């Protein structure tokens, strides 16, 4: 679901074909019939944006028919725990949970906690930027209690136990409701349920694959929660052949999340400090509660080691290891907010490092206008990209919105080294780090980012030398003494420092259990600790598959600690025996008194299954011998999230921000905490209960083609790829083609309230209209790889998309919106602006459209405006 694996990850798809040849059944649930569907046993067309309704239906089917893997659920999930009496469900509040404040469009999550547990200090009436999720990193939000302290009902019968709360929450997600919302016939839906449950349990497992078809929604995080709940109920986490595969789309996008270039994270999913954290201990208390159970309990060691790596000798216990040097966040600083801040003139300079937002980000026009309003822009890429030339050949030149002679942005284009011109590691989609050796030297001015940022660091340090300004201390004290090869740091030495070094011996540590909170270790990213164990680059291991068995795991190195399946303690029953011989992975070996098996056990090696934590313990010690989910604050997998999410403890079907449909389940139409930016330059198409949604009657979704790569800089420029997919097209069903008078290979244009985009028409049976609640709904699809540069050029599909974000992670909703389609090409130049304006007027669109997000009870609340603060005030001018 939400993945077109054969097209987006063709080489990974060999394993699906392999599984199929061995008898596995493959089901593809996707709005259109793709190259993946062509190889599925069953393709299930679904309306884009309704996956939670579908998955909720699966949960309901499982719970109503007692099809869950009960022993697994009872032992490893939080199903038995009781939820607070003050908790109210969407069933009670017409689609909202208790604690909602329409004024700030955010929740106070206090009432979601377990019954007798002191849960997260709640965000109160802070805006959702200050609420939990993005400040957590990946740690479980905490639940303070000693083991056994949570009130529970092992029989799962108590009306307030998670199991029953879940059952009630999804009780309305019946096959009939799934059919009405998703357009999936009841019979088809039940076939999927049967296949899923029949292939789960002791002897069998089912895997779930998703990609950005799930994440790019205003409720994206909850899509994944919904998938997780199904996989937990069916016992499909931590076991061989089970799990949830998040297929990621870029060579090291996993790495750039682990070692983040993200505003709210530090390496290893430690949260970025915020304004509540005056001292290191404030910060650490925010990462792990004092009584925190599980491995986040050691986050003091992870953080102190990071500070030691950042500031070296300057970081001492006396000065809080320079924690004070950390900048603080206090709100939303995501890339879309930043683009808006560029338009507002608040951002002076911008670096683009192998990314092309003029084509690849939602609302390309906003991105380009933002970049045309900078003081300076640095672009580093292999080839010339549209983002570097907004002043020269952007679509806004044609419309007259950007005039080169009036565009002030100073642009530096630096040619970058390619993957064969530098050494280093990529982290692939299953968390495996693989080292690349350098093949050739880069020519001309081509350089790596390592070179570039080393040069910046060295020169800035020189420039600031002798400064007495307090704000320059973090730069002057910054440890930047990596081994240098020529004029750039040795990537291997940087990786050593990421791995971590024992400062008393100067040697690399062998893993995160060796990290200390006393300043005697330095480590750049605790989850990567072990990648340079024994002073050896483990990511460079290349033991051929011909010379090793399936579990030898000596190719590359997978975090954490070369473990291949996370939470694999759950592959054994509470007593430590494999659930079945057929599906064994790790188990307790009584004789040797430790966990053993085919994978690195994701558990303390010598902790026996019957271990119970002593009263008052915390951290890993507090985990019992059957607490398989060792990173969670209660050692359990969460069917119900008592804290940590902005939009509710359980997934709920909300219609997309732009939808042709009223929510059939609740008065609450869309996500009540989605990030909306009501601005004249970011209009929304109306959705029920707002009027005029019929002006944009079709459901739009976009995705990749095999033959191109994202924004196209690495494919549209290459003749061998450009010739394989030589033009931008829009896929429509024959029915829609007839309705709108579109002809195969002819021109059409797709229109939203943002703009109109030209494309050639591809009429195909692979697009089928769906019957949604008694009416026929058409879906259209476009690939989004085109722009103005390269051997094949075309309009920017992302220009159609507005900026609306998931309330948890701020990812934009770009997988579903509404649109109109008309035959022929769009108007050119300034006439385009007038044309789109005419559509907006017809649809009655104002800045408030789409921002009245609280609709429970059937009435529209007043418009919700995302606060511009805390970045509102003019920055203090420095002397």
């Amino acid at each position, binding site marked *: 679901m939400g993945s077109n694996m*054969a*097209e987006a990850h*063709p*080489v990974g*798809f*060999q394993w699906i*074909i392999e599984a199929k*040849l061995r008898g596995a059944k493959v089901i593809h649930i996707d709005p259109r*019939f793709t*190259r*993946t*569907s*062509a*190889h*599925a*046993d*069953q*393709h*299930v*067309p679904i309306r884009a944006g309704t996956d939670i309704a579908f998955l909720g239906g699966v949960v309901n089917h499982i719970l109503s028919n007692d099809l869950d893997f009960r022993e697994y659920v009872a032992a490893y999930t939080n199903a038995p725990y009781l939820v607070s009496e003050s908790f109210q469900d969407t069933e009670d509040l017409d689609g909202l949970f208790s604690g909602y404040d329409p004024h700030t469009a955010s929740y106070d999550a206090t009432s979601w906690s377990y019954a007798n547990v002191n849960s997260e200090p709640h965000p109160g009436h802070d805006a959702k930027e200050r609420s939990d999720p993005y400040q957590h990193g990946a740690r479980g939000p905490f639940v303070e209690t000693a083991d056994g302290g949570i009130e529970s009902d092992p029989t799962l019968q108590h009306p307030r136990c998670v199991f029953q709360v879940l059952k009630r929450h999804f009780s309305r997600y019946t096959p009939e409701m799934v059919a009405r919302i998703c*357009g999936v*016939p009841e*019979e*088809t839906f039940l*076939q999927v349920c049967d296949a899923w449950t029949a292939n789960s349990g002791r002897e069998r497992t089912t895997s779930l694959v998703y990609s950005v078809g799930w994440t790019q929604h205003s409720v994206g995080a909850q899509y994944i929660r919904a998938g997780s709940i199904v996989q937990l109920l069916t016992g499909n986490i931590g076991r061989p052949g089970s799990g949830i595969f998040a297929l990621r789309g870029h060579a090291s996008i996993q790495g750039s999340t682990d070692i983040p270039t993200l505003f709210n994270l530090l390496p290893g999913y430690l949260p970025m400090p915020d304004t509540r954290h005056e001292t290191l201990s404030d910060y650490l208390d925010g990462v792990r509660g004092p009584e925190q159970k599980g491995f986040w309990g050691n986050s003091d060691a992870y953080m102190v080691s990071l500070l030691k790596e950042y500031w070296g000798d300057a970081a001492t216990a006396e000065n809080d290891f320079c924690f004070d040097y950390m900048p603080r966040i206090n709100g939303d600083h995501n890339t879309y907010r930043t683009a808006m801040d560029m338009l507002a003139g608040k951002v002076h300079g911008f670096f683009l490092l192998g990314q092309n937002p003029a084509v690849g980000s939602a609302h390309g026009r906003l991105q380009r206008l933002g970049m045309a309003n900078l003081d300076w822009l640095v672009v580093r890429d292999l080839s010339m990209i549209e983002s570097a030339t907004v002043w020269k050949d952007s679509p806004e030149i044609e419309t007259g919105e950007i005039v080169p002679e009036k565009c002030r942005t100073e642009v530096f284009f630096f040619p970058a080294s390619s993957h064969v011109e530098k050494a280093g590691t990529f982290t692939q989609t299953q968390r495996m780090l693989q080292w690349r050796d350098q093949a050739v030297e880069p020519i001309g001015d081509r350089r790596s980012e390592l070179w570039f940022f080393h040069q910046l660091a060295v020169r800035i340090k020189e420039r600031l030398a002798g400064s007495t300004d307090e704000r320059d201390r973090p730069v002057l004290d910054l440890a930047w003494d990596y081994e240098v090869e020529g004029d750039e740091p040795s990537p291997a030495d940087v990786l050593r420092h990421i791995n971590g070094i024992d400062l008393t011996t100067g040697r690399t540590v062998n893993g995160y259990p060796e990290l200390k909170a006393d300043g005697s270790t330095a480590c750049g990213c605790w989850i990567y600790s072990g990648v340079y164990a024994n002073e050896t680059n483990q990511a460079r291991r290349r033991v051929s598959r011909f010379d090793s068995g399936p579990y030898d795991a000596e190719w590359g190195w997978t975090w954490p600690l070369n473990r291949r399946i996370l939470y694999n303690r759950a592959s054994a029953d509470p007593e430590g025996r494999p659930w079945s011989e057929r599906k064994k992975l790790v188990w307790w070996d009584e004789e040797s008194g430790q966990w053993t098996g085919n994978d690195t056990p994701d558990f303390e090696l010598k902790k026996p299954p019957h271990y119970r934590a002593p009263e008052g313990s915390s951290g890993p010690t507090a985990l019992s011998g059957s607490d398989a989910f060792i990173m969670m604050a209660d050692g359990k997998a969460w069917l119900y999230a008592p804290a940590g999410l902005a939009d509710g403890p359980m997934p709920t079907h909300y219609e997309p921000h732009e939808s042709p449909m009223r929510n059939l389940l609740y008065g609450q139409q869309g996500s009540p905490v989605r990030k909306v930016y009501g601005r004249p330059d970011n209009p929304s198409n109306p959705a029920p209960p707002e009027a005029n949604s019929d002006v944009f009657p079709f459901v739009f979704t976009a995705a990749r*083609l*095999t*033959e191109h790569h994202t924004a196209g800089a690495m494919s549209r420029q290459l*003749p*061998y*790829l*450009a*010739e*394989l*997919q*030589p*033009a931008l*097209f829009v896929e429509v*069903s*024959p*029915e829609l*083609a*007839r*309705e709108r008078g579109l*002809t*195969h*290979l002819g021109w059409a244009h797709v229109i939203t309230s943002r703009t109109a985009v030209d494309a*050639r028409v*591809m*009429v*195909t*049976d*692979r697009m*089928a*209209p*769906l*019957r949604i609640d008694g009416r*026929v709904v058409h879906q259209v699809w476009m690939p989004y790889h085109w722009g103005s540069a390269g*051997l*094949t050029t075309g309009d920017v599909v992302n220009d159609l998309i507005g900026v609306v974000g998931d309330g948890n992670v701020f990812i934009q909703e770009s997988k579903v919106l509404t649109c109109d389609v008309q035959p022929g090409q769009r108007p050119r130049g300034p006439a385009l602006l007038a044309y789109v304006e005419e559509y907006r007027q017809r649809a009655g669109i104002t800045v408030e459209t789409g921002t009245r997000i609280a609709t429970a009870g059937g009435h529209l609340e007043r418009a919700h405006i995302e606060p511009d603060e805390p970045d509102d005030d003019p920055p203090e001018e420095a002397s």
Partner: protein
Amino acid sequence: MTRENSFHGPLADPAGEAGHEDHPPRMGFFTDTSVCIGCKACEVACKEWNAVPEDGIELLGMSYDNTGSLGASSWRHVAFIEQQRPLGHQDAGLTDLPVGPSSTETTTEVVAEALEATERGGANLGTAPVDLGFPSFDLPGAGSGVENRTQFRWLMSSDVCKHCTHAGCLDVCPTGALFRTEFGTVVVQQDICNGCGYCVSGCPYGVIDRRPDDGRAWKCTMCYDRLRADMEPACAKACPTDSIQFGPLDELRERADRRLADLHAIGVSEAQLYGRDPEDGVGGDGAFFLLLDDPEVYGFPPDPVVPARDIKSMWQHAGTAAAMMVAASAAVFLGGRRRR
């Protein structure tokens, strides 16, 4: 002077027949289209290795096929066929959906026109989606719900030079540019080819062609240089799902027979082998296929015949190269008619 079956019929050892002593086993391709995901890695890997130029950035709209046909600069070609037919034991999910007419017919028309504008007028190669004459639901007012588009499948298949046991191109080549290698494959030697073009009409599959710029004839060499280094051809090596399999032809034929039996066993009764039979009109192909429909659906001639089938008797009577050309033209003419 010639041996039995030098020009047609089964021939156990084409390389030996061509004078190669102590030669390696005959190597070939078995393309199992039932696992082809249509990624076109074969097309790119081939072009990268053999430095085949880009040959047209043009939208053909034959589903996802923008290559159109094999040619001088397309030595691999992935065909995409959208059909109103079920695939064995697949549920395409379209049953019961409120759909009207299929697009197949309309797109076929448009694509045929588009193809005629291409260099080789590829439409007559039959690679366009084929309407099999299933009942059309193209009723007035269709699309509102009562008529169902009941079945659908999307086939993909990577085509390549067949490296025939009896290769028409080779038989008619007057310069010795085309030759049979020690691996039993058929290769154009660019240092010899003078661009006469006889081979183009000699090929019953429409594979070999001349490049407009240099006039010489080009086609798949089965990566002759790689084979000599004991490496597999670039396309087979890249193929993500092992749809393109490379190896000794004997082994491939056994493997294909097993795969065919497996598919029949799980209910894919439409699966069939193409080019596997040494008794066929070209003595069997060095590159053969497992298809999920009749060959013409994929653009293959259903019954290819080497133009030199009758050459032995002709040689005896006339023995002129001119006659060969006549035979070649006649065979192509006949082959073409049969395909219609």
